């Protein structure tokens, strides 16, 4: 136990002696973990975000003017059968007029002697994420139906957003991996510096008959301290950021991030693994 306290103390002293380089290591760990954390959070919310976007997304189908309500109902039933369609709502000419009147507060029939609004149908698409959504075939099918006049949609937009999102996640993963490699180097350099500045101590310990693991332990602990420090900062930032983003989102939309905070444990694990890589790289070369 006392032996461990001694080694622990040595590790802490090492940290204090090289504040600036230590800061660089801690900061790079922090950076890696923030990026990885964002990935975790994004991944956890992919499903929810896409469902949210799809629920907001709708296709408006306008029917030709000559159509009867019965015929319209018939077409709506067929639209309903198209795979990928979640729900349909028929708006008859009369309903359209009512909506118009309640929204604009004026009576169209006052200066027109007929109802100019076509009957239409609002189509919602499936919310469940199951690969990228392909709205194009749905739209084509609706457009080719008899009695359909025009279709309003933002088909490409949703597709683009989904693609962009997935590419973004991939890009972020690559970035995270790259920073991780750099961080291993930076940590290894920091430890190398400490080792170099403690050549006297290392030599003394060897003369006295300290085992290699005894000599190495403070350096390994130093690396772990750095990584735990970086991980704590990253965890704090992520927690605060999610909180802030949710306050903002809550004011604008009904979508908020939902995060399973247990992933922070993984962040700490990743941090420790990175630091072990870094310090063992330095140690294996300099403490033989």
């Amino acid at each position: 136990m006392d032996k461990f306290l001694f080694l622990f103390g040595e590790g802490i002293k090492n940290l204090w002696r090289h504040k600036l380089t230590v800061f660089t290591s801690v900061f790079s760990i922090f950076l890696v973990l923030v990026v990885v954390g964002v990935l975790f959070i994004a991944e956890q919310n992919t499903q929810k975000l896409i469902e949210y976007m799809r629920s907001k997304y709708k296709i408006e189908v306008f029917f030709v003017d000559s159509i009867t309500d019965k015929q319209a109902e018939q077409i709506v039933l067929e639209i309903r059968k198209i795979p990928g369609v979640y729900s349909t709502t028929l708006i008859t000419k009369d309903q359209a007029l009512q909506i118009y009147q309640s929204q604009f507060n004026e009576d169209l029939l006052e200066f027109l002697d007929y109802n100019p609004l076509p009957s239409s149908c609002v189509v919602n698409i499936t919310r469940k994420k199951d690969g990228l959504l392909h709205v194009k075939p749905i739209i084509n099918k609706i457009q080719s139906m008899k009695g359909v006049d025009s279709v309003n949609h933002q088909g490409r937009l949703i597709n683009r957003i989904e693609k962009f999102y997935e590419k973004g996640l991939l890009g972020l993963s690559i970035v995270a991996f790259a920073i991780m490699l750099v961080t291993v180097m930076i940590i290894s350099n920091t430890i190398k510096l400490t080792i170099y500045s403690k050549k006297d101590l290392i030599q003394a310990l060897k003369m006295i008959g300290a085992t290699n693991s005894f000599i190495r332990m403070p350096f390994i602990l130093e690396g772990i301290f750095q990584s735990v420090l970086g991980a704590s900062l990253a965890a704090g930032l992520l927690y605060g950021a999610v909180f802030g983003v949710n306050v903002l989102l809550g004011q604008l939309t009904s979508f908020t991030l939902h995060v399973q905070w247990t992933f922070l444990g993984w962040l700490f694990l990743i941090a420790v693994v990175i630091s072990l890589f870094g310090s063992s790289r330095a140690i294996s070369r300099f403490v033989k």
Partner: protein
Amino acid sequence: MIKLENASYSFKKGFSLSNIDLTIDDGEFVFLIGPTGSGKTTMLRLIYMNILPDSGVVRVGKYSSNSIKKRKIPQLRRSIGMISQDYHLLADRNLFENVALPLHVIGYSKSDMGDLVIEMIEEVGLTGKENHLPDELSGGEQQRACLARALIKDPDIILADEPTGNLDPVTAFDLVKLLEKVNAEGTTVFMASHNYSLIKSRNHRIVEIHGGKLRS
């Protein structure tokens, strides 16, 4: 017991120790004398197995250079106290901490080591200087501090490499007397020096080395 049997070692860059035969019995006090560059430090390095002989054998206690495993070398060194030319006190620790260092390695608890360290510091006559950093000690005091650090783990063997290096004759003499006191308590002492005048009056066995070879 320290035993070198026909031990040879060559540095890649030229110098070599050749065919060294030497036996030092337990409890003996032996001087190793020779001019600078003759191989004294190299020979001591063979004994604490910092280097292993190219041919021949070095035996120290129950360890032998041709069978010792790398991870057993620390154990061998725990039974040896080193006072070396270039193994100084740690500049950023005070006298007490420097002397206590070997106890940390062996795994003493902090509460147990206090008395031992104080006692050891007293034995080498440095009581009252526990809080001094090495550069707040005189050269002679530093050497005695090194001796205290070597002695604290109660070693079977003391290897002293030029321990009187830059000390004035009186202080150097004091240090040798300290080593003799330790030797009288049963510790084997092997001390390298090129200061013949210091050694000749002391009535111990003298081994002479020249250009990497022993002379009798």
